[in-house]
């Protein structure tokens, strides 16, 4: 296990990550976690900020919440996919938005609370996606 985690980290650490979450505590906790795997993690407080940041820099993976002020996660993902179709998107949500809508706009989705296993699954999927 330990070995696999370390290998995963080695494989994904150079990817650029964008993370949108409006809840501060959640954002801090998750950002800290993501930082353990990725060297470059940028975070945003809402969909609009996320979209703005996405336009400025090249990212490979976007993590996002759905229910956020100003612009929600789904709309942000839609805009992002219009800019870069190849982006890998992960939705982490607490809301009860219909599943098909999420599946439509994101590669992976998990309902909060997110378990450690969920996070590892995400890492594995990223590895597969980018053939790392």
């Amino acid at each position, binding site marked *: 296990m330990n070995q696999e985690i370390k290998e995963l980290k080695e494989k994904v650490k150079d990817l650029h990550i964008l993370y949108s979450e409006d809840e501060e505590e959640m954002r801090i906790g998750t950002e800290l*976690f993501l930082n353990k795997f990725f060297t470059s993690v940028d975070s945003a407080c809402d969909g609009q900020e996320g979209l703005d940041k996405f336009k400025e820099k090249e990212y490979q993976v976007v993590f996002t919440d759905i229910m956020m*002020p*100003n612009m929600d996660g789904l709309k942000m993902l839609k805009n992002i996919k219009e800019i870069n179709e190849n982006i890998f998107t992960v939705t982490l949500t607490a*809301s009860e938005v219909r599943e098909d809508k999420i599946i439509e706009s994101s590669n992976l989705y998990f309902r909060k609370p997110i*378990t*450690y296993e969920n996070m590892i699954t995400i890492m594995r999927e990223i590895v597969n996606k980018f053939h790392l």
Partner: protein
Amino acid sequence: MQELFYIKLQELNQYYIKIIILVSAIILMLLSWSIYNEYEHKKISALEHAKNTFEKDMMFREWVASHGGVYVPPTDRTPPNPYLSHIPNRDLITTTGKKLTLMNPAYTLKQLMTEYKGMYGAKGRITSLNLLNPKNKANEWEVKALQIFEKKKQLEFHEFLKKDNKEYIYYMHALVTEESCLKCHLHQGYKVGDIRGGVSIVIPMEKYNRDFYNTIKDIFLIYIVVYLIVVFGIRYTHKILKLSILEQEKLYVENQKKEEIMLAQSRNAAMGEMISMIAHQWRQPISVIAMWANNITADVDMETLNKEDCKKYADNIVAQTKHLSQTIDDFRNFFRPDKSKETILIKDVMEDCLSVIEKSLQNNNILIERNYENFIEVNIYSRELMQVFINIIKNAKEALIDNKIKNAKITIKIYEDDYSVISEIRDNALGIKPEVIGKIFDPYFTTKGVKSGTGLGLYMSKTIVEKHLNGTIEVKNIDDGVSFVITIPKK
């Protein structure tokens, strides 16, 4: 039994008893009046009879007097009148040898009265205080009557008296001395116009009493029938009214039950709403806790764990549990059974309400603007008012989301006037359609579709405000939305 209807029934029973007493009294009065009338009628009839008898006797006497007396054959029954011995032609012998003797008016009358009883046993007697014939001596009652005639100058006197357990009418009429009387009585010093005697008539009342009792029997019978009909009529009416009151009570109780069921339904709906709000509020802290735990696991796996980080993660987890605990307190407060009133500022009730609902408003980008000028506490069922606030704010939230309003805003104003505390909740969700706004307080009316609306929220809000809080609730469309105004009296 409901107190209101118990009082109504008591009143009805009191009315019933009063009316029965009144009717009984009236009928009793009428009955007494009828009996009295019959009694008077009996006496008058008897008196009339006595008078008639007297008149008849007088007419007969008049007739005899008009002939100067009549001659009849002298017999044992009619011997020559010794009191007429001073009359020269008292005894006659006809040319054929037949003997005749003179009967003067008094003599004829005397014979008539002695020998013939009138109708119903009426018996007459002629008498005086100053007698010619001692047989005509006045009895005790006659003496009294004659004395009254002398003293009071009246011509008639009558009395109803009992003798040997039988009732009689005693009637006496004075006799005024006429020319014809002097034939016999001149020597006694009589003068024309003197009252020197009278005719007494005694009639047994038996027949009149019999008639009277028979009539009374009939009257009693009629009155009893009438009384029974009236009493049964009143009883029937009373029964109908009583049944109608009981029916009313039944309807009232049914209505109350219906209302209780609706209240329970709306409470359940509100509870469901609350549970989903709680679930939403819990998901975030739980997610955060999970993420801190994930951090620990990641550190362990990557062998980067250090004591300080570990402590930080644990602190963060504990902070989140406080949040969870707070949410549970809010939840429990909301569903605390609210049987007793409390004295509270309405703005505090609103704040309690917002503490559970504000989060979901913020998530939907709805701004809440508060404007409180509330200083007087009121004594109310605060949980129920909170339910009303939640209903209205929840409706506003849903309208703002459904209509995709930008700059969505709910404005809450709580202020006071002399008598009441007024809470106004406005949104900018474009308002309620005019054809619907009149129905929004109707039970089971919903615009939200079967799945999301019970149609009871505003109905129960109105019921709560009007029946439990003694206030009013009004709705009106404003420029860009809806305004609900809830007025709660200060006392």
